[in-house]
């Protein structure tokens, strides 16, 4: 089978250049602040098309990014353009109907800013390889109980989904749901929620008893801290890119 573009530049390839957790965190913070203060439509478009899109493809998260852009941002963008370009027909601070072009441009800028913000967050966090996830959050200063909460959440999400699937499947198998129409699925919600909450509480009690027996809280304080490893080339590249973006946007803002 001939490998696709995304397969060639998949996350596995990118891991050679995976930045260190600290560089990743610093780059994310700088890129987010830079995007929030950016008000240049063309620069935002260039940042998205020229930098973020290729990086999301190279990082193997292009599908998630496009899903975010189409499913979430699509309706938001349409609404922004409709409201600011046609209904209000002016940017904020100007009289209603005074400048449809500027209103449209403002709507585009807000939509692009959201796109870039979402892309930056996805690029910084979704590209962390699963085996590096816990080490990364530990390098960000999350220790002890905080680490248990984050690790537990990541582990329990799929388990909770499995439990709800089991309840629904059992109801389908017993013939309690005549068909899978919208109204029937909606009616299953009460039957799903109570067993799910009861399981959550029972599970919390069981886990707490096990942790108590094993002295988990005391052991958490003595866990050794692993070094925050990562590619120095990748770290330098992402930090340079993010801080250049931040500095340029600050300079643009200051110069008016």
């Amino acid at each position: 089978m001939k490998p696709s573009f995304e397969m060639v530049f998949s996350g596995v390839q990118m891991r050679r250049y995976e930045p260190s957790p600290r560089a990743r965190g610093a780059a994310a913070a700088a890129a987010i602040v830079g995007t929030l203060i950016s008000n240049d439509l063309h620069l935002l478009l260039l940042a998205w098309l020229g930098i973020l899109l290729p990086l999301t493809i190279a990082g193997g998260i292009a599908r998630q990014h496009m899903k975010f852009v189409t499913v979430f941002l699509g309706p938001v963008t349409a609404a922004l353009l409709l409201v600011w370009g046609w209904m209000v027909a002016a940017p904020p601070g100007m009289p209603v109907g005074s400048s449809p072009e500027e209103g449209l441009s403002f709507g585009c800028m807000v939509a692009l800013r959201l796109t870039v913000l979402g892309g930056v967050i996805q690029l910084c966090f979704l590209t962390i390889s699963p085996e590096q996830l816990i080490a990364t959050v530990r390098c960000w200063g999350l220790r002890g109980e905080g680490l248990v909460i984050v690790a537990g959440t990541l582990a329990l999400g799929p388990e909770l989904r499995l439990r709800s699937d089991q309840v629904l499947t059992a109801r389908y198998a017993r013939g309690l749901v005549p068909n899978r129409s919208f109204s029937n699925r909606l009616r299953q919600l009460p039957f799903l929620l109570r067993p799910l909450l009861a399981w959550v509480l029972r599970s919390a009690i069981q886990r707490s008893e096990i942790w108590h027996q094993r002295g988990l809280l005391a052991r958490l304080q003595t866990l050794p801290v692993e070094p925050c490893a990562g590619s120095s080339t990748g770290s330098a590249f992402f930090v340079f890119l993010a801080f250049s973006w931040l500095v340029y946007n600050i300079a643009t803002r200051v110069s008016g």
Partner: protein
Amino acid sequence: MENLTRSNETHSPTNPQLVLALLPLGIALNLSLGTLVHTIKAPIYVDAVGTILVTLLAGMRAGIIVGVVSFIVGGIFVNPVLPWFSGTQAAIAIYTYFAAKKGAFRTYKLVIVTGVGLGIVAGVVSAPVITALFAGITGSGASLIVAFLLASGKSVLQSVVLSGLAAEPLDKTIQCLLAVWLLRGIPQTLLDRFHNEALFRNGFLRGANETV
């Protein structure tokens, strides 16, 4: 985030391991319910039921952690815009905690009043984020109200606050009713492990300490 489970609140359970074990489950519940309701296309969000439940069961600090962390994790895996609304989740936990202290979840009539109040709080707290990040338009049904108000000459912040006050109380009332209905259906023996004053005060737990 050290010592998250220390219980200096008046109605927290005393077992720190139990609170610590409940937090990831509350976060997962928050995320799962939101995703589930989104999947079956129900006309409500249900993104704060876990926050309300954990606040009632384990106190304000636990509720804030569940709300904020679930929106941060949701921001990474579900929708990158969610973390910006973490403050709203914290406000929901704080409001729920003080409402529960006053016994505002005791009857369904009181829960409706509490839900309306929670909707107002959530609407006001999320308005600056919607204004700054989305320029008032989030693509939801409430955006129609914002658009109408903007076209009538109101500022973006005014429009967002007013639309939030119109739309949020219904959603938050439904979420409060759902949380209370869920807690009322849980066996007493199970709830008794989360022994705290709020559960007695709001009638979720019955027994010798009912008048606490």
